[in-house]
């Protein structure tokens, strides 16, 4: 009765899965993409020549030939890549692409980024123990820009900030082209690009030119703890509070701004809009994750085990930063009377382990292996604090549209925070999770229009499913009304009532 074709089917979908189907014709690469790639290659070549040649002083022609061409080439490439296509979801081939599926290229890229971070963070220390001055040429390359903006030659930090901003902008173009059918993504990408370029690159540069304290205005305590740590601002992982307090009006403004953002703006904005106002609209780490990190967002682990690890880790870091900060202030107030000599090593360890290794090296270096939000999900104390606010004191939720979910899994797959969005959607429940950064990609990739990011009138009623008989149905599936209880006519009647 059953066809032989069916009975003889023996494919192991669990072990082998479904592989890359052959292509009839290679994807045509248009002239714009070719031009973009040519410019990228030329720029990269110029970069290698200038960077490796160890130029003593940068020049505008060298800067334009290298980073200028890389930027324009990258933007042109991503612009033309999707310009001719119908606006919509562009995820064809993601699960077959070596660099997006932890293949050899992904590992190579992860190693390169990681090595770059190590070289850059501990450049002076590593040079002191014999590493060749590999970054010198690159730093000199950006001299002209540094001189124009800040009135002094570039250093490794300026070079890093420059590269970071370029990555956000180039991959921001990619993001805009990829999601151009969705205005939420257009505006959000414009926002992260604006804050990175304006508040984390140009503004700090201008402050330096005006002989004011250098400060990134997109980071606050507890993510960037130094301005609120006591200290004079020199040395590794040093506190900057007193240094800023001595810097006149601008220093006081920065301190006031940091305190205001942390104490007042954060809770209010999170109540109104959820943690997304920061994590996927303003934050620099989020900005990079939402642009450069987008190709790898699907690599986040969706298991409940990962969720458990996430909650332990991120809240531990939050506790750690609170304790370290409190400890440093007690130490300062008591002049070490109770705390002994522990203050210095403590802040150095926190700075090294959390700020440098976790946020930097792992946070970005592991994009191609663990997805774009490793730091944001497992380590960021700001995200932890915002998450607690979002979970309990916010109007924000992702609404599920009645019974329309057909469990395809696009939402969960493309959730960079590893939230099993589908788990909620197929039960018809709203998604109210501490970790959700409100990037909106789940709603965009949903082929049935099931998800919507919303700020409700208040934080009430977020946990209820949104109408229709199916949500109730699925809810009951998970919460058996008569489980483990003796049955009887009355009990059955009650069940029937209860499931209506």
């Amino acid at each position, binding site marked *: *009765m059953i066809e032989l074709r069916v009975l003889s089917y023996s494919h192991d*979908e669990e072990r082998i899965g479904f592989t890359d189907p052959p292509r*009839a014709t290679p994807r045509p690469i248009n002239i714009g993409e070719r031009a973009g790639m040519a410019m990228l290659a030329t720029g990269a070549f110029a970069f290698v020549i200038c960077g490796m040649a160890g130029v003593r002083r940068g020049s505008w022609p060298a800067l334009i030939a290298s980073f200028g061409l890389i930027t324009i080439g990258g933007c042109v490439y991503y612009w033309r890549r999707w310009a001719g296509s*119908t606006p919509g979801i562009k995820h*064809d081939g993601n*699960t077959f692409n070596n660099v997006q599926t932890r293949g050899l290229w992904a590992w190579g890229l992860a190693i390169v980024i990681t090595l770059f971070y190590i070289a850059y963070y501990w450049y002076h220390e590593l040079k002191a123990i014999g590493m060749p001055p590999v970054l010198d040429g690159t730093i000199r390359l950006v001299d002209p820009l540094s001189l124009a903006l800040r009135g002094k030659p570039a250093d490794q930090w300026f070079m890093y900030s420059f590269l970071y901003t370029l990555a956000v902008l180039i991959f921001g173009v990619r993001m805009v082209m990829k999601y151009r059918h969705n*205005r939420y993504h257009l505006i959000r990408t414009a926002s992260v690009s604006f804050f990175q370029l304006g508040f984390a690159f140009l503004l700090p540069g201008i402050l330096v030119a005006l002989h004011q304290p250098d400060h990134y205005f997109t980071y606050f305590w507890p993510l960037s703890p130094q301005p609120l740590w006591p200290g004079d601002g020199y040395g590794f992982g040093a506190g900057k509070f007193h240094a800023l307090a001595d810097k006149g009006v601008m220093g006081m403004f920065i301190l006031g701004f940091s305190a205001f953002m942390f104490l007042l703006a954060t809770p209010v904005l999170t109540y109104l809009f959820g943690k997304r106002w920061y994590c996927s609209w303003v934050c620099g780490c989020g900005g990079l994750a939402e642009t450069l990190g987008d190709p790898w967002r699907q690599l986040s682990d969706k298991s409940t085990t990962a969720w458990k690890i996430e909650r332990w880790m991120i809240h531990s870091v939050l506790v750690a930063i609170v304790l370290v900060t409190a400890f440093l202030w007690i130490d300062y107030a008591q002049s070490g009377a109770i705390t002994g000599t522990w203050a210095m090593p403590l802040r150095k360890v926190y700075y090294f382990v959390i700020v440098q290794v976790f946020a930097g090296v792992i946070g970005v270096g592991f994009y191609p292996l663990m997805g774009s939000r490793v730091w944001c999900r497992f380590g960021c104390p700001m995200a932890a604090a915002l998450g607690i606010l979002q979970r309990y004191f916010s109007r924000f939720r992702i609404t599920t549209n009645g019974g329309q979910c057909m469990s395809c899994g696009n939402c969960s797959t493309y959730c960079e925070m590893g939230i099993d969005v589908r788990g909620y959607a197929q039960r018809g429940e709203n998604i109210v999770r501490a970790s959700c950064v409100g990037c909106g990609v789940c709603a965009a*990739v949903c082929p049935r229009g099931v998800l919507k990011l919303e700020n409700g009138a208040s934080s009430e009623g977020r946990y209820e499913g949104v*109408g229709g008989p199916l949500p109730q149905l699925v809810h009951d599936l998970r919460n058996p009304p008569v489980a483990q209880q003796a049955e009887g006519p009355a009990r059955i009647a009650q069940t*029937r009532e209860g499931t209506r």
Partner: protein
Amino acid sequence: MCHAAIIGNGIAGITAARRLRALRPDWRISVISGESRYHYSRPALMYIFMGHMRYADTKPFEDRVWADERIELVRDWVTEIDVAASRLRLHAGGTLAYDKLLIATGSQSNRFGWPGQDLRRVQGLYDLIDLHTLTENMRDTRRSVIVGGGLIGVELAEMLHSRGVHVTMLIRETDYWRNVLPAEESAMVSRLIRHEGFDLRLETRLAEILDDGTGAAWAVVTDRGERIEAQLVGLTVGVSPNIDLVRDTAIKAGRGVLVDESLRTNVDNIWAAGDCAEIVRPHVERNLLQQVWYTGKAQGRVAGEAMAGVETRYEPGIWYNSAKFLDLEYQTYGDVRPNPRDGERHLWWEHADGRKGVRLVCDSAGVFIGLNTMGVRYRHEVCEGWIRDRRSIDDVVAQLPQANFDSEFSRRYESEIAATMREQTR
């Protein structure tokens, strides 16, 4: 201990198993499927092929759930139901005795007896077996013909197109899915299909599939006598209940397995749910045959309750469905016919870009009975409420903004829509 066996691990079978487990913690529950070890989302087949998701991503529950809920998963095909002995014969694993049985075997792709329909490289798209076959058939495929203008047809077209295969679609109707969609929606989808570069042949039927001499397809001939080269022929002309297993048994079947409103078959301890079930209702002439994900889920729940012995009844409720044609999302709620019935009024708004549209339908008394949206997302609960409460069309037009479910910052067209609709109702 009571043993409940469920044939099929699709949405109906799995929903029934979990509902039954919730109601009967001490029963033994087995789910039998030869297709896959675990339940996966069938509508997601296309995304596996196109590389949006891995197979593993399409499983709605973590693997550990089945052990946690003590639902035994049997990877085998049931080849025979021995109703008298309450026993299933399995292809590989001997026999399995049951006390209660649920048949949730889903559908089969239709084939209408075309010459050449059993050739290699001729296939439908329904399950993992088809997906596996398709991946193999892709080798040396440059051109394809898809027969049938429905949801699966356009999905298959999109899949093949994503791998650079040329697609010709043969559609019997005057426009894409015109037997379900009203003219404007139908035309909109047809336009998009053509825009994507597919060769859309309307009012054209398949006459014959030609053998290349090795038992594989190489071309099709249409009823107009045209010959179209195709190394792959997709037959996507709808599905029928998969009732192979109940033929020649005491279980009664019509088009599907015949069941009453509590999804019980004519045999005492056997139920059927989902695509394969045909529901006979008292005082309703037409039997109910529903073959979409949502109804499978709702029927699965009822079947689980019925098997547990709880008094229950499947109530179809207000119809809804949704789909995505290429990049165009579609939702429908209530009763929207392809052509207005007597006295019915269809109000239609279409955006100038030709990629968005909203249709409101009311009966002769001006009572709102259903709507379609194209490229716009509306809220299920709001639309359902309007239909349930029998709101007047004027009320609905006035309250359209409440229904919008598009992303934040999306452009809203409700005032434009309302103006257009008011003009049409005047």
